């Protein structure tokens, strides 16, 4: 039986073309890109080519791109980097209530270090409260951070509008675009972003590489100090194979993204409609339309998500109960609670995210399996009003 992978939001397999592009840089073109001699200069050439391509992809200039080890580092660098350049301690930082841990945790750390943290609330559909931001922005926070699209419920935030509000008041605006770069059009100009995070392994690139866009003129204290790499903004020997892989992944996304978006939106809608119809007592989480093309997040009453996940895994189907990095946690998803899902219902949530290799046949598989699994678990749930006797 073929395994069915439906957790593309957690990570994606690396595209064969990406692997192929990386291979020569492990062994033949291995030189340190900061070295003067030919071994180093030929990799430096590749490095600057990818930097240019990356910049072009999001409408930036090459010197505005800093390569990092991934989305978490980019987010940490953005938040801490802005905080630590601030002269006066105790500045305010606005962070949405549905951010990934890689934003909310550094924000919590900065709070302990003396900064003030303000949570931007979201409505029942998961969309941030623009009026709240409008009011708060007059208090001149150091930074506003609102993600482009949410990793759990797929909601796409009104980032361009937030960026415009921030730009008008000269407030620095960061957006975590880890779930959108390579999937939706991302233009730092249209979004009015000052800082933007990306991670390659979410778009068929390798793990361990990403970038932070830093708009010209934005002062940022480095997170990793040391050598002169990345114009002294991120130390460490340049990870050329991975950087080249990121470049190739962006190239592929550039030519395939649009058609993929249409295809997956169709799949997504078929899945949502099918599940809502087949399974009683369930609800879709997050706005139905303002949504990533590949994301389905549904809560099933009376059952617990991990049990659903494991039962699907027995059948070779991989889905998630929330963001992968918190799968060991015992608490209900903070994102679901923030949009008002009751805790007991939040515990029964499943995220299905599709991607390049998802097929119609796989949709059929999960549309058949999921209702059956939920029914099985409900039959043994003490919460289920229609529970049958053993």
């Amino acid at each position, binding site marked *: 039986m073929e395994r069915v992978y439906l957790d593309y939001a957690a990570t994606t397999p690396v595209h064969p073309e990406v692997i192929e592009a990386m291979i020569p840089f492990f062994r033949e073109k291995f030189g340190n890109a900061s070295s003067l001699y030919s071994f180093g200069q030929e990799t430096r050439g590749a490095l600057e080519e990818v930097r240019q391509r990356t910049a072009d992809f999001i409408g930036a200039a090459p010197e505005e791109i800093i390569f990092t080890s991934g989305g978490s580092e980019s987010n940490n660098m953005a938040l801490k980097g802005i905080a630590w350049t601030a002269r006066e301690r105790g500045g305010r930082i606005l962070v949405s209530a549905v951010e990934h841990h890689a934003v909310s945790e550094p924000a919590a750390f900065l709070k302990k270090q003396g900064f003030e943290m303000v949570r931007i609330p979201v409505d029942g559909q998961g969309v941030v409260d623009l009026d709240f931001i409008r009011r708060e922005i007059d208090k001149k926070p150091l930074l506003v951070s609102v993600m482009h699209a949410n990793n759990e419920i797929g909601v796409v935030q009104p980032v361009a509008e937030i960026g415009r509000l921030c730009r008008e008041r000269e407030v620095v605006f960061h957006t975590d675009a880890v779930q959108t770069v390579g999937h939706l059009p991302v233009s730092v100009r249209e979004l009015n972003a000052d800082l933007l995070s990306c991670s390659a392994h979410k778009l068929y690139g390798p793990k361990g590489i990403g970038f932070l866009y830093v708009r010209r003129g934005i002062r940022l204290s480095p997170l990793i100090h040391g050598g002169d790499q990345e114009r002294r903004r991120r130390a460490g020997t340049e990870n050329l194979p991975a950087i080249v892989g990121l470049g190739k992944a962006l190239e592929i996304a550039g030519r395939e993204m649009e058609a993929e978006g249409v295809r997956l939106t169709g799949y997504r809608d078929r899945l949502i409609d099918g599940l809502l119809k087949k399974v009683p007592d369930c609800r879709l989480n997050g706005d139905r339309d303002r949504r990533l093309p590949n994301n389905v997040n549904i809560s099933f009453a009376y*059952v617990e998500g991990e*049990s659903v996940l494991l039962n699907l*895994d027995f059948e070779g189907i991989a889905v998630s109960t929330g963001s992968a990095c918190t799968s060991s946690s*015992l608490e209900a998803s903070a994102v679901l609670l923030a949009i008002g899902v*009751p805790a007991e219902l939040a*515990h029964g949530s499943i995220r299905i995210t599709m991607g390049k290799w998802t097929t119609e046949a796989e949709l059929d598989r999960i549309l058949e399996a999921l209702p059956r699994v939920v029914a099985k678990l409900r*039959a043994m*749930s*003490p919460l289920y009003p229609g529970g049958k006797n*053993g």
Partner: protein
Amino acid sequence: MAETKTPYSEKVMDHFRNPRNVGVIENPSGVGKVGNPVCGDVMELFIKVEAGIITEARFRTFGCGAAIATSSMMTEMVKGKTLEEALEISNKAVAEALGGLPPVKMHCSVLAEEALQAAIEDYRKRSGTV
């Protein structure tokens, strides 16, 4: 499907996939219901007691893989035991019988222990032995 790999032992997965003694007992000798849906797990345990011995145990559980497997294992372990013997079954013993649980999941085994204590207490209350 032999390729399935989870953080759980094979025994846990066996009890999770094919839980023993699922369901309710009509006219039980005692019932214990513990846990909280807000925290993500609830167990309901039904026991039948005859001459001081647990002759039947059934459960219904809302919870993760560990919660369901420990519930199932517990119902197996108490059958045929006196109430006193049953009360000595600790959550650790259930976990051990399952070949161990991941550290973050140990708390789920407490659920089964508590449900058993609650069911026996309920039985004693009903039968006037407390």
